[in-house]
């Protein structure tokens, strides 16, 4: 079990609230009632996040609820202005404390700094971000650090670890990349695991199943996006990444394969001539995994499946004797499952490269 042990020694309430939780990030969290109250929570993103949290607070008084500032999706941090501090009336600029107070007033359980994206190699901006957040001595502050993917590569990772270790608050680490999976870059996944292991109080933020990998390697908590666009940050100059713009079917979590796949892809590429894989999660109860269509109800149903499947994985991870061993087992079994799927449909199913990389890192 990872226990936050960063420089701060006076934040037990907020740390206790977040530790060993995997939160869902969403803009329209229709399935909030399905979030596991024992080790879940919700981060609301988007322009309406504050209002959404305010409206949810009364209905879910014990639920960890966070607001993601829009800055991380719209603003580039600079040395002079690492945070996006908008003026409320156009006359008086807000301070960082004002911005954080606003989140508290809207019912957020913990408050997230309105950080901008840190560009490749922009050490002055990154240090300014950490240092200015450190000046706010409230125990419920979480320092959001959205960094360009190249920061995770072998050249820069040691520097990044050292800077993040200087934070007195837990660090919410998001990764920016518009071209591909941010961790697919050479050495980036290994850097991600190193951050989880070496930075006390690290939260894997806006991530996918790699959040569980981070948790297994020592991260304090994880925040997994409901939609693919909420599992990373898009570059400000490039916009979001989409592998197939024509396919509007939902991304479906396949826990046996430890991957997400679009339902239409499954139907056309894997299960056109073979029976679909089925799912035993609390939502699916043995139904086919490729049944979700591109309709609103299809997406909603897929999200419920994803959440149920994720809840199951999180429960297993947190109750395992060794999270790292559990994660290695998941990777190993997922690799085998790809082979079995290939045999079932009589064609090779390439496995995601992260399975082998995580396995190599995690084998005890």
């Amino acid at each position, binding site marked *: 079990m990872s226990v936050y042990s960063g420089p701060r020694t006076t934040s037990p309430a907020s740390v206790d609230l977040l530790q060993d939780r995997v939160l869902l990030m969403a803009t329209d969290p229709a399935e909030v009632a399905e979030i596991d109250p024992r080790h879940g929570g919700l981060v609301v993103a988007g322009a309406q996040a504050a209002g959404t949290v305010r409206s949810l607070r009364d209905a879910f008084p014990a639920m960890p609820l966070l607001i993601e500032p829009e800055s991380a999706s719209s603003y580039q941090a600079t040395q002079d202005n690492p945070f996006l501090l908008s003026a409320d009336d156009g006359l008086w600029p807000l301070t960082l404390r004002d911005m954080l107070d606003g989140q508290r007033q809207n019912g957020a359980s913990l408050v997230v700094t309105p950080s901008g994206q840190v*560009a490749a190699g922009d050490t002055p901006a990154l240090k300014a971000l950490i240092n200015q957040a450190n000046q706010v001595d409230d125990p419920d502050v979480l320092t959001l650090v959205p960094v360009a*993917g*190249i920061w995770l590569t072998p050249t820069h990772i*040691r520097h990044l670890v*050292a800077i993040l270790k200087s934070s007195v608050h837990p660090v919410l680490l998001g990764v920016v990349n518009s071209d591909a999976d941010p961790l697919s870059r050479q050495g980036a996944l290994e850097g991600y695991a190193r951050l989880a292991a070496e930075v006390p109080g690290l939260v894997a933020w806006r991530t996918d199943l790699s959040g569980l990998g981070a948790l297994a390697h020592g991260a304090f908590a994880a925040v997994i996006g409901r939609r693919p666009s909420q599992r990373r940050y898009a570059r400000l100059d490039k916009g979001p990444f989409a592998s197939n713009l024509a396919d509007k079917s939902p991304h479906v979590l396949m826990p046996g394969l430890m991957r997400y796949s679009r339902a239409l892809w499954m139907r056309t590429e894997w299960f056109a001539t073979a029976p679909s894989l089925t799912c035993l999660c609390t939502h699916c109860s043995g139904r086919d995994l490729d049944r979700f269509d591109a309709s609103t109800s299809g997406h909603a149903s897929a999200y419920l499946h994803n959440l149920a499947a994720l809840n199951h994985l999180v429960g297993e991870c947190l109750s395992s004797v060794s999270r790292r061993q559990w994660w290695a087992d998941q990777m190993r079994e997922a690799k085998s499952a790809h082979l079995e799927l290939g045999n079932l449909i009589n064609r090779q199913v390439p496995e995601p490269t992260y399975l082998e990389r995580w396995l190599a890192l995690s084998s005890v």
Partner: protein
Amino acid sequence: MRRWYWLLGCGTFVDMDNGSAGLMLATVRVARGLTQSALAKEAGVSQATVSKVESGVMSLPDAQWDRLAEVLDAPSGLLSQPVGFAGPPATAFHRKRASLPVSVSTQLRARLDLVHLQLAGLVGDRVPVEISRDPLDDDGYTSPEEVAQRVRSALRIAPGPIGDLIAVIEAAGVVVVDADLGSVKVDALMSWPPGGRPVVLFGEHAPGDRQRFSLAHELGHAVMHEVPTAAQESEADRFAAELLMPRADITGSLGDVSMAALARLKRVWGVSMAALLRRARDLDQISDYQYRQGSIELSRAGYRTREPVEVAVGRPRLLGDCLAAEMAAGVTVEDLAAAAWMTEPSFRATYLQGELR
């Protein structure tokens, strides 16, 4: 207990308590590219004698010292100098290819030791050292790029490309010496002894763009490194990249990495197209895939061995200016040679014909 000193430049141990003058003999011998056997044969002594003298376990009569000095084209007084007389030993860093033979590397380090000795007499304190050491911390909190930014700031370098890099670093008190390094596999080497000044020897064979990057790389070693580390070469490269292509100034220009665009940028920034392409990747302006494609294109066009767009080769001036000032003040060549611990013919050939040879 006896103290033994590992002579970096010569690959031998010297007994510090018993005739450490042998260290100087070893340094001069290696700088001249001679083995102990070759020197012994020329000087009419046995190889065992040279070995024992260098190790400090045997001394020689004056006549034999003079003969060794003659063979080595050195003033005999130089060979009898004790360890430390030219300043504490310093680690030498060099930008080289992996295939550089160890013997060449060893010879170059010994040559650099002698150049330090010569410059101590020729430049002395007349030119102040304006840069400071800024070693990287153990935990990685400071990056080589930050150190490069601080150096730019300390040397009051304006934003954007650096025009005459040699002039900039000579103004900081770093002596740059262009030399025939005996191999095209080494571009430059540098050391900065405690209490002394940084000295860079750089090969005259390299094109201007590579020369500039090598000099910046060596300056990075001078400022950041006092002892060798596993990451030192990568760190010096990162320092050089930031010094010559500051992130804040160049990022907006690196979106287009076509060959034509790289050639245009090379003209502006005075660095190779390959270095610009890599900088574009390191600053996240292009993807890994684009970088690989660009590298393939550079190779296919033959630019790995010879790039288009000539960048002017820089020439050092600091040492020449010092010598000219001394001679204008009436100091003779004989005096200058003596100050540099060189024979007069050797001094003339080395420093009065424009280049160190």
